[in-house]
């Protein structure tokens, strides 16, 4: 198992390096650079020259990538395109905010999804199931910005119970995000619950028809005891992967929510940095998101392996 882990780690590292190269080339190939993006109509003559000099944009792309890569290995993420702000600081703040939002949404979304998944799986095709499954389909298909805007309209404008958007600065301590974080949290939890719920539901249904459950019923195990001790652990195994992907999604892919709610997270910073051609920031965020994806997938696989001894070897099960 250790050998397998080492192999996975190495592959993960290679993936992250490849991602950074691809993203660097991608942004380089976009027309314009950090100076033309900033100066817009004024991007010519002395002003443009000064700008390019001060940002070191006159060295060729390959060299710039190597300098950056060496810097990262040493632990220095560099400075943003304006030549001043330390990236570690600003990206660190955004990462903290994204983690916080992710944590809050997960703490509501996952338990709710598991609970509802089990309930709808056990009472399949009853009114409870129909109601929650249909709601889940709605929550999954309605675009997030639509549900976000509707929620803001209802709770912020009409009822005035909650603030509509986040006006706290990126570097504020996380507790200051309440109560503004409640609406984004609800929207994210809704989407997340929908996906995980359906996964849990189908695996509960699957497990309920298996031999050992039949055995347990025949043995006389009390119903709820059986659900908690036999059904749940087995049904949750496939859900681990979905939760892992959800965690990774929450950290880099919720740009739309961040824009609608003005939430200072990683996704929004990435979009702004690309538009500004701020390569150091783009690279830093790409690195973080790639590492998170790789790490989270690895963690999910390990957890699954721990939970399911059949998967602990490199060889496929021979039968």
């Amino acid at each position, binding site marked *: 198992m250790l050998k397998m882990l080492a192999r996975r780690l190495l592959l993960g590292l290679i993936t992250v390096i490849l991602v950074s190269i691809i993203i660097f080339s991608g942004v380089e190939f976009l027309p314009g650079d950090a100076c033309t993006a900033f100066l817009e109509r004024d991007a010519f003559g002395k002003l443009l020259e000064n700008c390019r000099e001060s940002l070191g944009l006159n060295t060729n792309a390959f060299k710039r990538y190597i300098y950056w890569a060496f810097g990262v290995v040493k632990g220095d993420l560099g400075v943003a395109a304006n030549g001043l702000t330390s990236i570690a600081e600003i990206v660190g703040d955004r990462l903290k905010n994204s983690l916080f939002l992710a944590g809050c949404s997960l703490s509501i979304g996952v338990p709710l999804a598991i609970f509802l998944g089990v309930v709808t799986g056990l009472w399949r095709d009853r009114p409870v199931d129909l109601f929650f499954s249909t709601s889940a389909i709605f929550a999954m298909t309605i675009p997030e910005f639509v549900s976000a805007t509707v929620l803001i309209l209802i709770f912020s404008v009409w009822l*005035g119970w909650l603030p509509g958007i986040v006006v706290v600065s990126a570097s504020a301590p996380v507790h200051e995000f309440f109560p503004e974080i409640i609406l984004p949290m609800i929207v994210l939890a809704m989407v997340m619950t929908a996906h995980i719920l359906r996964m849990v539901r189908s695996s509960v249904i699957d497990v309920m028809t298996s031999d050992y459950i039949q055995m347990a019923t025949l043995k006389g195990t009390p119903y709820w005891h059986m659900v908690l001790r036999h059904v749940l652990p087995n049904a949750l195994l496939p859900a681990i992967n979905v939760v892992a992907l959800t965690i990774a999604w929450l950290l880099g892919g919720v740009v739309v929510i961040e824009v609608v709610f003005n939430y200072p997270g990683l996704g929004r910073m990435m979009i702004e940095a690309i538009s500004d051609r701020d390569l150091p920031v783009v690279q830093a965020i790409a690195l973080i998101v790639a590492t998170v994806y790789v790490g989270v997938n690895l963690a999910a696989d390990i957890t699954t392996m721990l939970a399911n001894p059949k998967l602990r070897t490199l060889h496929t099960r021979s039968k």
Partner: protein
Amino acid sequence: MKLLTKLFTAMVFMIAGAAIADPSGTLRESHDLGFGENSSLDPISKGRVFQMTDKLMDRLVRPGLDGSPSADLAENWSANADATVWTFNIRKGVKFHDGSNLDADDVLYSFTRVLDPDIASPARSAVKMIDSMKKTGSHTVEFTLNTPFADLPLTLMDYRLRILPEGSGDSIASTGIGTGPFKLEKLDFQGTTVLAANEDYWAGAPGVAKIEIIAIPEGQARLQAFMGGQIDILFRITEQQKTMLEGSDRYNVAQIPTGNWRGLIFRTDVEPFNDPRVRKAMRLVADREALVQLVQGGAGNVACDSPVAPNDQYRADISCPQDIEQAKALLAEAGFADGIEVNVHVATLEPTWPTLGIAYQAQAAEAGIRVNVVQTPSDGYWNRIWMKKDVAATRWKERPADQALHEIYLSTAKWNESFYKDVDFDELLASARRELDFEKRKALYVQAQEHLFENAGTLIPYTVSMNIGSSSRVQNFDAAKEEAVRWHLVTVD
């Protein structure tokens, strides 16, 4: 008896003191973080955050509510007989936020910075006519111009020409020290910047104790913040957004005409638009009244290809109804009897451009002009499309007449987006600047605008009106262009 008089006097002073209200309350505004990491408090840099510099620093001359120059840090001004030397008397007793006194040296320093070719500020083009300047007294500055120019005070109203303390150039981007009604308390471009009232402001202490300026990049989010009561003032509300605010007594929405315009550039240096008849035809097919209704929802004023604002003193009164027949005749004369095909480049960078393109397409079709509306990415529009493609959409913010005509149409202007080279037009502008008599000067500017209507390559169908929203808790708020609002008068409940 003496004691009674003393007591009485003391009472009067106490009551008077209470009647002059102390600054109280917090006003919240937003900015769009348009410059991201490059945001700065330096008023002449490209990344200046206008909402902050406007409240922290003053100009020599400010726009009055009717647009005419009114005294700010310059108490009064005068010119010599041929308007080549201007003398400005600086207000005495004004202090900067750091306690130092305002004098002529600070004014000279600020303007030298603007004109410095190494700093290469975009504001430099506004004051290029200044040849040299010197102080003729502790509070008097003299500008010597390289051309007679009767409207120097108008030009000095530019929102970027703020007065900084001498020698503050290196630090001003983060300290924002000026003479304005508010001083910097906490700077956070990406989050909430807090400004505190400057109780020693020369025009009187401000009505609010603090102003919070919050970064909200997304237009829809700004509207939601306004509707939810998280910000108190919102400029540039679009017509569609305005409908959500109507009928509620929580908000007041005022609409004011501005000189900001959107239009289509037909480059005059490429075929077929190098023929003035073709250019005129392209502009004649536009039904401008209809465009105002379709594109702006009625919130605009018809313009006849002149970049001069509707309430500018030099505005020419031209009538320009749609004339399909004449357009067809002109095209036939130029050799395009069976019409012409053009690609009009637009982007959603300016949300009304695609609509303008499509409306124009329908109108031009009546004269046999086949328009293809080409959508291009907003990212990099100003580098790849503007001043590169044959026909592209453009937008401009309001400027005084002289500045607008020079910056957009002078042969040597760097933003001459239609590549318009016309010696007669240049001569008209030069004569107008030199003319000291107002009526004659106005006649020359009017002639220049009429010349543009006949020959220019840029279609300017309308100037837009701006919607300004304020919540009902805001009082004494001038419903005017941002740079003319007198912030020290605003109070909140």
